[in-house]
């Protein structure tokens, strides 16, 4: 920039102070004017260049931590890549192996059961809570809202310990209460028939607040005029809910459902922390693989059996599933990610 190779902004060793101090400092100002004159030739180019400047950090980071790892993951999935051995190219071998792997199907089934249980349960609980918290006459709204929201801001590892202890078949408070009601005493985390349900309860508990807040935001967007008009026409509350509120809430509903489905497919921490018993030196996902959700399956293959290629192939299947869910959502509501 500066013909003498000095830093622009300094003139003959005299530091320039203040902004826009071109007056009386001929050389730098001439340079700047030159640049401006040059850029004035093509203001669109200048505009464009600035756009790329603002975009640059995002682009670099995107390339480095999203695009590149994604490509690498696909490359890995075409190899028999393990930490301690050789890494031969096997093409789609990992993908065909996966189709014949009973554990793949089993863990996929477990994730599906998780999703089909957790997502509707959250919606069925969070929606009425949001409806009640949205009405004008309700007192202590913010207190209730805080209570239902509190689990969202807890640390899932910490609360998983608490729940693990609550679910203890003999020393836990849940079976104590079921005992009062004479409802039997499931083995919860110790029983393959119950372990997944115990963990699903924790997942529902943790996410109700999030869904509730989203529903509340959606409810605010419903114009009161519609409701008033319907009421004048003699519709009762129940009818208003089914005919007006619910249809108008549909975009929010789909959005919440999609978020919850994606979260359900990606769940890891709850089954990992609640099923792994330290001194038992056990594989997470137990007992008897009954809580081996799909991400746990990927983790087990990649970081416990160190078969990175095979784990990557499994991860791509997860990605395809999530992409499919998101595309279905885009079909259901035309405007993606609008709420």
């Amino acid at each position: 920039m500066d013909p003498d190779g000095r830093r622009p902004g300094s003139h003959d060793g005299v530091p320039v102070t203040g902004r826009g101090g071109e007056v009386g400092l001929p050389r730098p100002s001439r340079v700047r004017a030159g640049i401006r004159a040059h850029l004035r030739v093509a203001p669109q180019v200048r505009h464009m260049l600035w756009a790329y400047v603002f975009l640059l950090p995002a682009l670099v980071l995107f390339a480095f931590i999203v695009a590149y790892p994604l490509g690498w993951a696909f490359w890995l999935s075409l190899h028999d890549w393990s930490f301690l051995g050789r890494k031969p190219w096997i093409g789609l071998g990992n993908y065909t192996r996966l189709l014949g792997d009973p554990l793949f199907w089993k863990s996929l089934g477990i994730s599906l059961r998780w999703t089909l249980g957790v997502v509707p349960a959250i919606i069925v609980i969070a929606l009425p809570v949001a409806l009640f918290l949205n009405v004008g006459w309700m007192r202590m709204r913010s207190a209730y809202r805080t209570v239902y929201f509190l689990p969202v801001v807890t640390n899932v590892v910490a609360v998983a310990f608490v729940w693990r202890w609550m679910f203890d078949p003999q020393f836990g408070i849940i079976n104590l209460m079921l005992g009062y009601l004479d409802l039997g005493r499931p083995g919860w985390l110790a029983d393959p028939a119950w372990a997944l349900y115990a963990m699903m309860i924790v997942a529902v508990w943790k996410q109700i607040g999030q869904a509730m807040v989203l529903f509340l935001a959606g409810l605010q967007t419903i114009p009161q005029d519609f409701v008033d008009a319907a009421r004048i026409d003699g519709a009762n509350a129940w009818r208003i809910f089914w005919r007006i509120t619910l249809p108008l809430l549909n975009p929010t509903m789909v959005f919440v459902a999609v978020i919850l489905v994606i979260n359900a497919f990606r769940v890891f921490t709850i089954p990992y922390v609640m099923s792994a018993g330290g001194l038992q030196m056990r594989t997470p996902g137990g007992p008897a693989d009954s809580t081996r959700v799909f991400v746990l399956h990927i983790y087990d293959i990649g970081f416990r059996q160190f078969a990175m290629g095979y784990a990557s192939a499994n991860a791509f299947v997860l990605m395809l599933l999530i992409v499919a869910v998101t595309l279905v959502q885009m079909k259901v509501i035309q405007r993606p990610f609008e709420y």
Partner: protein
Amino acid sequence: MRETRRIILITLAVVTGLAMTVPPDRVAAQPPITITHWQHFHEGRVMALGGLKQVFERQHPGVRIVTDFPPYAGFFEKMVTSLVAGTGPDVFQAPHFMAEQLINGGFLAPVPDSVATSTDIERTFFKWTTERFKRGGRHYGLPVDVQHIVLFINDDLARAAGLDPARPPATWDELIAQARRATRRDARGEIVQAGLDTRYKQAIYATLLYQFIDGPVVNAARREVTYNSPAGQDAFRVIESLLRGPNAVDSPRFLPGSRKFELKRAVFYLNHPVARSVIGLIGPDIKYTVAPVPAVSGKPPIAPGSHWAYVVNAKSRNAEMAWRWAEFLTSRVGMRAWIKEAGDAPYRMDVLDLETNTVVRDTLMRHTRVTDFAGFCYPVLDDLVDALALTTRPLADIVNEAKAKHDACVREALK
């Protein structure tokens, strides 16, 4: 309100800032040599190692030992991932069943002659603890954590059940009969005192498998496991009878994952002699007897043995000092600390006199047979036992499915 918030925020910021300032011991000039040491967490061993570390650092001025004790559950993940990353510790412990993988992968540095020659090593330690870490005449590990299974009996609980701890069960049939007498249930039929604490499943299935099969359980030459044989299935049938049905002596519903024996909720317990230290820490007032493992009627009481080794990372920049530290830990001086504070059994032949328990010594010298597990595959057996205890599937199906999984794992490990 705004003010309060600001004050709280500022306080938080100040506290965080203070906490972030480097702790004083890190400010001190780094000694010229730092040796990082990892081993999985174990209360007694952590204490013993703390003392040994001080002695070693006093003997070697300028050397600092930095220890880390990851939990056992994540130890293998951490070890292998960090080795591949090239950031692993200088010294760590490796189980005998992973020796081949670690040596084949080029992850280990051999013991230099300046620290101990092959002859020294083979003269000092039990033969079966040095074989798997030996390759091409060189040793890649110094044995540590040499273990075999013994039977612990809670004296008071046994007497309360009408049993005599001085006359321990000699056979599995006797153990099962006595454990059944000692199992207590509440009105609902739930177990509130386990006859046998089965949480360390490996102790039970390894003992039964090596006694019933009386030969290799993992056939290294053919890279397959043999426990689907009739003898192996008999062994699993014994386990099934311990864990299932109205006569079960323990239940997964009862204190899952917890230390029943140390909490005085179990009468019998199969584990390694090193379990003595944890019993002492959690239940210091428990009076217990150590007995030999029960045997199959008419056969010798084989106790499955296992061991770990201190190994040095091939990437260590201070390999020789690292080996000195490892050698110190397995020396006679180190051995005293392991026995006294960690409750270990001796793992050198020249310190057998330090072990006061005759059953432990006797089993170690006469009946221990090292297991031939290969690779990080034993979780397959844990899952198998879970399936036996928790599902109604036929035993043969469960065993055959586990064998297929286990074979694949062993092939991967030995390839």
